[in-house]
């Protein structure tokens, strides 16, 4: 009895089990929706939220761990979406090739772009990536053979292993992808890779002195971020069955940054929460509130206010709520406050 208990305890403490359980919980949503206990539209909103959580996870790795800010997320996500559509629908090569293309090509382009743009720092990098995103966006509008231009690209639910997917199945794929991404991210940040990224953010010079090849690791983080963005783009396409150029604009990139910041830098679950707050809360909560939901434009304003308020009260993101809760639960390890202060100092510099 007690041995099973400890084994179970160990299992429960394994973060990967946590992610799997999280995924399993999400998998019940299509069932709920199918049985009418939950609105089907909620399933769609949650699905898109999870897709954004995937992109945001990549950006969190970039921003939270490596301290690099990218405003090019939307462009790469769009590229993933269009590639998936092009390979699946125009070339007819099927789901797997489409996913592969959406993973590989943006990543390769991301790395190439990274080689150029990672030479510039901080704010310049942000805008350099914005430049790339704008170039991609303009290309989506113009390259009709590829994107169907401003009429928007249409696609279909994929056929996977001979099975015609439907909304619930694509949702399931999104969940699986998210769980894998969470696990992968966990592995990256809880090991040598993550430490090297940390070191790079805290002090580039010290990191170099410790033998961290800064450019390689920046590229690595950038590549992972584009990989996730490409994946998310493909999932977006399969879920929406369409892609429209102007979707992939600066505003989306900023929203993804907002998800990371609102959820909390360097927090895996926080990123999912952030995506939920930024994308789903306005849809599922604000628009359904009395008064606010009734006046056109008000929910939108309140989404903005929501972002501001969260950052005002939880400068470390909503993850901070978790930390505070944990600190209250066990006063044994009062660790995060000094770090906050230290982080402020870093930020102030």
């Amino acid at each position, binding site marked *: 009895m007690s041995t099973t208990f400890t084994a179970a305890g160990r299992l429960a403490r394994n973060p990967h089990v946590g992610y799997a359980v999280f995924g399993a919980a999400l998998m019940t949503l299509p069932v709920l929706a199918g049985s009418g206990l939950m609105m089907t539209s909620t399933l769609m909103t949650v699905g898109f939220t999870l897709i954004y959580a995937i992109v945001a996870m990549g950006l969190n790795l970039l921003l939270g761990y490596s301290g690099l800010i990218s405003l090019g997320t939307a462009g790469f996500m769009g590229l993933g979406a269009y590639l998936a559509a092009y390979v699946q629908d125009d070339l007819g090569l099927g789901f797997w090739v489409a996913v592969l293309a959406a993973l590989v090509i943006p990543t390769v382009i991301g790395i190439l772009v990274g080689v150029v743009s990672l030479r510039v720092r901080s704010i310049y990098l942000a805008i350099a990536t914005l430049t790339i995103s704008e170039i991609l966006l303009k290309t989506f509008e113009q390259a009709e053979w590829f994107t169907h231009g401003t009429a928007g690209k249409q696609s279909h639910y994929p056929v996977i292993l001979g099975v015609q997917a439907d909304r619930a199945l694509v949702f399931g794929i999104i969940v699986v992808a998210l769980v894998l991404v969470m696990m*992968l991210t966990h*592995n*990256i940040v809880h*090991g*040598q*890779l993550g*430490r*090297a990224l*940390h*070191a790079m*953010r*805290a*002090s580039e*010079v*010290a*990191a*170099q*002195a*410790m*033998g*961290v*090849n*800064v450019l390689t690791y920046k590229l*690595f983080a950038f590549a992972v971020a584009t990989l996730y963005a490409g994946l998310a783009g493909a999932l977006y396409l399969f879920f929406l069955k369409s892609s429209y150029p102007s979707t992939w604009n600066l505003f989306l990139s900023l929203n993804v940054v907002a998800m990371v910041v609102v959820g909390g830098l*360097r927090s895996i679950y926080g990123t999912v929460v952030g995506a939920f707050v930024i994308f789903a809360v306005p849809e599922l909560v604000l628009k359904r509130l009395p008064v606010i939901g009734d006046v056109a434009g008000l929910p939108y304003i309140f989404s903005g206010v929501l972002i501001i308020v969260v950052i005002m009260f939880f400068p470390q993101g909503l993850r901070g709520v978790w930390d505070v809760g944990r600190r209250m639960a066990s006063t044994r390890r009062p*660790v*995060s*406050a*000094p*770090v906050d*202060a*230290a*982080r402020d100092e*870093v930020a102030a510099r």
Partner: protein
Amino acid sequence: MTDVLQVENLSISFGGLKALDDLSFTVSDHEIFGLIGPNGAGKTTVFNCVTQFYRPDTGTVWFAPGVDRLVRAGHAGTDRIDLVGQPVHRVIRYGLVRTFQNVEIIPELTVLDNVLIGGHVDFRSSMIAQMLRLPRARAEEAQYREKAREALRFLSIEHLADQLAGGQPYGVRKRLEMARTLMAEPRLIILDEPAAGLNESETEDLADTIRRIRDTFGCSVLLVEHDMGLVMDVCDQICAISFGKFLASGTPVEIQRDVRVHEAYLGERDDA
């Protein structure tokens, strides 16, 4: 072959300012070598030139970390190499590690994780292996954790291993930086003002630690410090510089007797 580091004719200038002017000195095996000089004499600049944060205008920095080390770093067939022109992040591969004048640690990581960064170059598992958490990578991670704990134990701060580095007092952070250098199997450790901000008894502990490091790890130490008590206590050899130029060198006793050093640096003889 008994010289680990040979700095020859090093010069660098910033704009019109000649920060280093034809400076040469040599650090031997197992030696604790002190570099002293007035503020702005160029000591930190020497360190930066040796570790390639700055590209010197002229001069060479010969480093002889031992043949196996060179072979491991991909330089078979030589017994020393010129560090000038090497990328910064490669320098540590040869066994040359430094600390910083303004302690550089990662506040958001635990003390242990901070030390683990020091082992970065020796980490063998590929990125992929780490991302997939293959058994090999896990084993290596465990092995390095143990090594990092040892390093912390060596500096008597093992009990702080799991605390965040950010909240630690200055003294602990300095030790932490030192523990980090031990992870890289150093041949030469460069310390920039390790005693700054420490009180007298802590400084004494530091002297002891530096000697123990030298003896345990069989490496050399190159040290910049304004605390003459420490310098005179631990150093085997001292080189004094002023305005980027060589001023004097010798044993602590010789340096203390040197008039030029007194004029430029030490002032009245009432401290030490």
